[in-house]
């Protein structure tokens, strides 16, 4: 083996890498917030409705879950680009991840809703609560507990998936790493360092999630 490791360039550009890691986090968090909202809506449409709206929701869920995330990103980048609709790299990644998160989370939510006994709805209606109050006060809080850990997984997944952003020109953590790696030819060193940064980010997310769970779910 005659490869000589040179770590100095990596250390020198560490601040830039960490800054791009913030961009990774930003896009992952935003895509999760949007994904939860859309996922919730999609699951409720799928459970409650019939007709075109249901068909739309089912197609979304099916496409998001059964096609590669990379192709979903390409759709929002090059796909729509072919029709003259151009987004910034940030927006392409955000839309792609949101699309993917929504599909997966919708199925998690659906499982969550199905796990709450019908009688909980009857009990809260019998107290005079309307449907909206029943859902926001009784059903959804219980569903959130059921989907909490799958949701944490999805958040981790979103962080890791955002690395696909480098293929649509987004300078998040992987894109930035690629940039420095090709500038210095220290490819192994850069990606090794970046792998560690991803690892630490994920560990922090899992730790925070556990902390939040112990606060949120006392029952």
């Amino acid at each position, binding site marked *: 083996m005659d490869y000589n490791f040179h770590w100095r360039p990596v250390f020198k550009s560490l601040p830039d890498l960490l800054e791009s890691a913030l961009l990774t986090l930003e896009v992952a968090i935003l895509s999760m917030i949007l994904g939860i909202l859309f996922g919730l809506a999609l699951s409720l449409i799928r459970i409650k409705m019939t007709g075109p709206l249901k068909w739309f929701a089912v197609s979304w869920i099916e496409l998001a879950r059964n096609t590669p995330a990379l192709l979903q990103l390409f759709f929002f980048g090059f796909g729509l680009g072919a029709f003259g609709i151009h987004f910034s790299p940030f927006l392409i990644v955000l839309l792609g991840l949101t699309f993917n998160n929504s599909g997966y989370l919708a199925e998690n939510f659906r499982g969550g809703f199905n796990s709450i*006994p019908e*009688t*909980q709805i*009857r*009990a*809260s*209606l*019998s*107290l*005079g*609560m*309307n449907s909206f*109050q029943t859902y926001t*006060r*009784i059903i959804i*809080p*219980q569903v959130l*507990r059921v989907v909490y850990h799958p949701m944490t997984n999805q958040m981790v997944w979103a962080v890791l998936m955002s690395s696909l952003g480098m293929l649509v020109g987004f300078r998040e953590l992987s894109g930035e790493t690629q940039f420095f790696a090709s500038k210095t030819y220290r490819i192994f060193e850069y990606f090794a360092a970046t792998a560690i940064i991803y690892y630490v980010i994920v560990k922090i997310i899992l730790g925070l999630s556990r902390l939040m769970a112990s606060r949120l*779910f*006392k*029952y």
Partner: protein
Amino acid sequence: MIKITNLHKQYGELEVLKGIDLDVPKGEVLSVIGSSGSGKSTLLYCINGLEPIQKGQIIVDDIDVHASDTNLNSVRQNMGMVFQQWNSFPHLTVLENVALAPKIVSKLSKKEALEVAEKQLLHVGLGDKLTQYPSALSGGQQQRLAIARALAMEPKCMLFDEATSALDPELVGEVLDTIRLLADEGMTMICVTHEMGFAREVSDRVAFFHEGKIEEINQPEELFGSAKSKYLQKFLSKVKT
């Protein structure tokens, strides 16, 4: 208080209630007995508006429950319902379980709602469980919690749907005691029950349901003592009284 005329209820092809006429005056405790599938529980769901009806009329406190312009949510505020599966809200503490509806439905302030809740929990003997979660309670305690939760809305009548059927035998007594307490306080109640001893002792009248109809209705001594219907005689011979 509750006046039912010619009530018909179908699930698809299956006719569950075949013309029920029933008048429950204020302060009466009516027990409803009968074998499974005779339509007892369905009757309660119809009174509460949880199930639509096909024909007839249900008037509760001068309001036609199934009229299209009736606000069901406000009807239900006047009617407490307790279910076979006690249905505590697992994500809320005992106190929050009871305080929620007074706060968001009756629009009491948080402080008032908590006071009402605490009062009702003391009433059913759960004063020492306020900060616990339902999972820490026994079945009997959870059912008493459900009763307190219904009472906190200050209902004019209470509907009990086999409130003790899902309980371990040794826990039945405490729940029946609580229902008895309400009867003594003059609450109007309809209790669907399999507890014949309870029906006999607490009720002003007992109705025997058979295949979607009221086969016989009478004061408990009469109904249990000298049953006229042959179905009722058969039913009573099978259950221990």
